C-alpha cells in the first residue's frame, strides 16, 4: 500500500530526482556554524506566528470596545487560548531577537559582500517589516501599553515640517489614537503586511539558494576569495550535502527555538507582559512607567535624550538607511573583520551603545 502510494507520487512529481538533484547535490560549505541556521530558524518563527495568529483571529474582536475583553477571554475562558496567545507573543519577541543575532553574525562574517548585497537589503527590509508587524500587533490587545506606545510612534512623523501632521493623521486616521487606528493597524497586521513579507522573504530565500551560502571568512580558499565578475553559483573546496546534513542542523536549531519558547512560557510567563500590557487602554491617562518593547528601548531612550525632535528622528532614519545600504558603502573585498580593526571597533562601539541605551531606556525614570 505504502509502496504503491510512493510509486504513484514518484511517477507524478519525481520526488527521488528532486531530493537527489535539488537537495542532496546542493552543497553547503562544511565549515558552516550554527549561525548559518538562524535564517531558517527565523523563518520557522514566522510560520509559528502565522499559525497562532490564524487561531487568535477566531476569537479576537478588532473593535476598541471589545478588543481588550476579547484578548482577556482568549487568555482566561477559551480552552488553551492562553497557550495560543502566549506562543504568539513569546515567539514574536524571540523572532526579533533571532533577526538581530542573524544580522550581527552576517556582519561579523562579512557575508553581505559582493555578490550578496541584495540578499542583505532584502533581509534589512524584512527586519523593518517585522518591526511593523510588532508595532501593529501590539496595539491590538488595546491595553495601556498598546495605546500609549502607538500614540508615541504615530506622533513620530510630526517631527517633519509641512507634511508631518498630515502623515501622522493618515497613519492614525485622526488626531489621536482611536478605534479607527485599531482597525487600521489590524488590517495592516493581518492583511497588508503578510503578502509584503512573503514577497520579500521569497526574494531573500531565492537569492540565498541561487548564489549559495557564503564560506566563513577564516576558512575561505583562494578560489572562493576570487572576485565575482560574472554570475556563478558559489563553489566550495570542502562541502557537504544540504540534505540530510545541513537540514538536520537546521531542524535541531528549530527545536532549540521551540524549547526556549516553551521554557519562557512555562517559567517566565510575564517576561513580555508588564502591568501596562494587562490593563485596558485609557485615552485620558498616560501611565507613569510606560515603556516600549525591549527592541524599541534604544530608539526610545535616544529620543528622550536628544532635545530636538526633528534631529532625533532624522538621526534614526539616517541610521536605518545606512544599515539597509551598508553593503553598497562597504565595498572592500576583505571579509575577515579581524583584518579591519576600524570597522570592527566602530561596530563594537555601536553594539555597546545599543545595549547601553536599551538598559538605560528600561531603567530610566
Amino acid at each position, binding site marked *: 500500500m505504502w509502496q504503491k502510494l510512493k510509486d504513484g507520487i514518484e511517477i507524478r512529481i519525481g520526488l527521488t530526482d528532486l531530493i537527489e538533484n535539488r537537495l542532496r547535490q546542493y552543497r553547503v560549505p562544511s565549515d558552516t556554524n550554527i549561525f548559518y541556521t538562524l535564517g531558517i530558524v527565523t523563518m520557522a518563527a514566522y510560520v509559528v506566528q502565522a499559525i497562532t495568529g490564524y487561531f487568535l483571529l477566531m476569537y479576537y474582536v478588532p473593535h476598541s470596545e471589545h478588543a481588550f475583553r476579547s484578548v482577556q477571554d482568549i487568555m482566561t475562558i477559551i480552552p488553551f487560548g492562553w497557550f495560543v496567545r502566549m506562543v504568539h507573543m513569546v515567539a514574536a519577541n524571540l523572532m526579533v531577537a533571532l533577526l538581530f543575532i542573524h544580522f550581527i553574525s552576517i556582519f561579523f562574517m562579512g557575508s553581505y559582500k559582493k555578490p550578496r548585497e541584495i540578499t542583505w537589503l532584502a533581509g534589512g527590509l524584512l527586519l523593518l517589516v517585522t518591526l511593523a508587524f510588532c508595532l501593529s500587533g501590539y496595539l491590538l490587545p488595546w491595553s495601556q501599553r498598546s495605546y*500609549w506606545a502607538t*500614540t*508615541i510612534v*504615530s*506622533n*513620530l512623523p*510630526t517631527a517633519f515640517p509641512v507634511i508631518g501632521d498630515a502623515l501622522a*493623521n*493618515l497613519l*492614525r*486616521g*485622526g*488626531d*489621536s489614537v482611536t478605534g*479607527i487606528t485599531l482597525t487600521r493597524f489590524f488590517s495592516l497586521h493581518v492583511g497588508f503586511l503578510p503578502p509584503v513579507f512573503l514577497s520579500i522573504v521569497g526574494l531573500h530565500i531565492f537569492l540565498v539558494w541561487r548564489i549559495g551560502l557564503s564560506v566563513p571568512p577564516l576558512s575561505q580558499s583562494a578560489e572562493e576569495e576570487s572576485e565575482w565578475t560574472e554570475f556563478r553559483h558559489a563553489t566550495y573546496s570542502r562541502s557537504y550535502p544540504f540534505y540530510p546534513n545541513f537540514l538536520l542542523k537546521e531542524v535541531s536549531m528549530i527545536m532549540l527555538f521551540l524549547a526556549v519558547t516553551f521554557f519562557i512560557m512555562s517559567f517566565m510567563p510575564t517576561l513580555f507582559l508588564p502591568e501596562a500590557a494587562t490593563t485596558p487602554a485609557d*485615552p*485620558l*491617562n*498616560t*501611565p*507613569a*512607567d*510606560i515603556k516600549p518593547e525591549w527592541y524599541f528601548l534604544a530608539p*526610545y531612550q535616544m*529620543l*528622550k*535624550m*536628544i*532635545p*530636538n*525632535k*526633528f534631529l*532625533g528622528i532624522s538621526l534614526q532614519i539616517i541610521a536605518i538607511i545606512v544599515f539597509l545600504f551598508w553593503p553598497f558603502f562597504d565595498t572592500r573585498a576583505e571579509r575577515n573583520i579581524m583584518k579591519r580593526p576600524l570597522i570592527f571597533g566602530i561596530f563594537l562601539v555601536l553594539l555597546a551603545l545599543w545595549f547601553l541605551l536599551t538598559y538605560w531606556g528600561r531603567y*530610566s*525614570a
Partner: protein
Amino acid sequence: MKRRSFLGVLGTLFGVTAFGSVAYPLLRYLGPPQAEIDAGKQSFKKADVGDAREIVFQNTPAIIINRPGKGYIALSRVCTHLGCLIDYDRKSKKLICPCHAGFFNLEGRVESGPPPKALTTFPLRVEGEDIIIG
C-alpha cells in the same frame, strides 16, 4: 511623430492617468474622517488654589489649574513632543510628561526635556462658580 514614439507618449499618458485615478481616491480613503467637534463654549467646575482639574475640551484632554497668586489657566494635556498626556505634580508645581520626561511650568512653557514647544493654552473666564472655556 513616429508611431513608436506616439505609442510611448500615449502609454505614459494612460499610465499617469490610471495611477492618479487610483492614488487620489486611495489617499482620500485613508484620510482621517472629520471628527465631530463641539466648537462652542464649555463650562467646568472650579478647582481649589494649587489644585488642578482634568477635563476634555473639544475632544482634547486638557487641564485647568488654579495657580497660587496667578489665577486659572487652561492647558492642553497633550505633550508637544510625542502626544502623551502630561500630569500635574502638585508638589513641584510642574506639568510632567511620563513618556520622555518633558517638564512644563504652570504657564505651559517648556522647562526641560525634549518637547519642542509650549502646551496649547485655551482662553477661559471665571463666571461665579464656573469656568467657561472657549
